[in-house]
């Protein structure tokens, strides 16, 4: 059996306002290294909520979460930030690039934050990532000079900069047209195949999901099948 990157054990979450409504019920699953997993389900089934718990940004839940075999519960805010920085890459529906910085700098930011490599080295690595995604020629442009598809690719490059254990995506193709969605999917495919990158993508695009290695289907806060 290959290495487990992400493991969720009996995760429960409820919203308490105004009345207690359970959102996630007894979620247990794990993701192995190099897997390309998609989470699908109807709107409101809790898949995004689950993703934010798995990404350590939401800490208000019951159950246990292991990332890279390390228990996430009870870690301090600063320690969780460090783990997000080092071990998780994010791609959201919206690109969330900083308009004040050029593309290269946007990609470099989490790398500089990590401080593992010198700025020069981070820049070199950022260029490599941009090259993989085929947008290295746009490196010195500002984000608002790029098209939607290009921006999303920059966001993926940013997610990759620290060689994370896992990339999490929240509807990464939700805002893109058919052609650009295709490109993004191909990139994800390439990342798993060529770089053995682990991916966990939440989507409601069944066609997108059907082409991934493994589908986790959710309904009403439970995992229907995986």
């Amino acid at each position: 059996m290959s290495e487990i990157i992400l493991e969720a054990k009996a995760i429960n979450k409820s919203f308490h306002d105004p009345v207690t409504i359970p959102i996630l019920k007894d979620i247990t699953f794990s993701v192995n290294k190099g897997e390309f997993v998609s989470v699908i389900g109807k709107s409101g089934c809790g898949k995004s909520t689950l993703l934010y718990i798995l990404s350590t940004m939401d800490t208000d839940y019951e159950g246990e979460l292991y990332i890279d075999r390390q228990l996430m519960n009870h870690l301090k805010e600063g320690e969780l930030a460090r783990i997000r920085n080092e071990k998780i890459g994010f791609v959201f529906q919206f690109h969330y690039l900083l308009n004040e910085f050029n593309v290269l700098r946007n990609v470099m930011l989490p790398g500089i934050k990590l401080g593992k490599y010198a700025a020069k080295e981070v820049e070199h690595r950022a260029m490599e990532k941009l090259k993989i995604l085929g947008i290295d020629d746009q490196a010195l442009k500002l984000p608002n000079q790029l098209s939607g598809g290009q921006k999303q690719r920059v966001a993926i490059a940013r997610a990759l900069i620290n060689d994370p254990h896992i990339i999490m995506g929240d509807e990464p193709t939700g805002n893109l047209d058919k052609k650009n969605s295709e490109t993004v999917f191909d990139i994800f495919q390439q990342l798993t195949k060529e770089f053995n990158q682990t991916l966990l993508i939440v989507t409601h695009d069944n066609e997108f999901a059907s082409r991934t290695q493994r589908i986790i289907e959710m309904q009403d806060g439970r995992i229907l099948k995986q």
Partner: protein
Amino acid sequence: MNSKLIFEIAKSLLLARWKQSMVAAVGVTFSIAMFITLLGFMTGLNDMLDGLILNRTPHVRLFNEVKPNPEQPTALVKGLGYVFIQSIKPTGNGQNVDNVSAILQALRKDNRVLGVSPKVTAQVFYNVGNIDITGVINGVDVEAEQKLFHFSDYVTKGNPTDLKNVPNSIILGKAAAEKMMASIGDVIQVTTSRGDRQPLKVVGLFQSGLQDLDKVQSFASLATTQKLLGKPASYITDINIKSVDILSAPAMANEYRKLFATDAEDIQTANSQFETGSSVRSVISYAVGITLLIVAGFGIYNILNMMIYEKMDSIAILKATGFSGSDVKNIFITIALTIGFFGGLFGLIFGLLLSNIVDNIPFNTAGLPTIKTFPVNYSLKFYVIGMVFSLITTYLAGMFPARKASKIDPVIIIRGK
């Protein structure tokens, strides 16, 4: 590495809203400039007013008060039964300080003493036709007075050194001279308390800034005054001492009182009201300056709050990609401090310029002969305080928005899209 990154992000956020940042910085600049100018001007004024009295006042004054002998004859013969005392009258040399040359010698050796100026005071009448005007002639050592008590600053006409060079000369108080219609070169008549008449040549006019003083006081050389009084050269009524450290004056006065067996008075006891006035004026200046800074602080608070609402997305993504709450807080505090630093720096420069302008505004009053423009103090202290204040206020103004930014939950922002 981290701090460099935080600085870089802060800089880009600051430049992204550079107009607002500028307005905030201008607020700080304005308040610091006003703070510097106000304090400089107020302190200049304080120094001038204090100088009016304190510069000319000896730090310690040795003199002999005319007072009854504490050891009365009856006390000396206590226990001898009945004592008959007849016809006792005060004798002795009155106000003369005994043993002057020895005291002067001892004082000149004391390294706490900056300088000594002996003085003879003579009560006289200025004769104006049939009318006698009371007056006081201060016999002074002109050189010592010049050096220690800025004597020449107050001699508005004539040359103070003439007092020494011209025999039987006098520098009249300006108001007294006006009464006598005397000007330089005239000879006036004075009558001493013993009834002798003496002609004195006017070589200068003296203006202290205190009208009442100028009506009465005049200056002559030590020798002239001693001659007026018919006393020998050892006759000295006051020894004025300027100490190196004005704060040590009370202790020195105490010591000399015992050592030389004279009366001794220190400046703090003699002029305590001046310090009170100065400190009240300083407190007012500080209060106004700090009020201005607080107003500027609110400006910074507003602008940072706006910036945080606008940059909510950026903050969220920074947190999602591994920036901790404290990193975000540091970014916004850096922004605030940068505004404070540059605003404060320009404030210091403008404050200096403004002080300079005030310093050049003509200010002529009859009472203050040496002052031609508004007095301004350029003490480095105000500039340091101004800079520190601007940093502290902007830090406090930035802290609350920064804390708010650090608590932004990235999940809410990212899901909200």
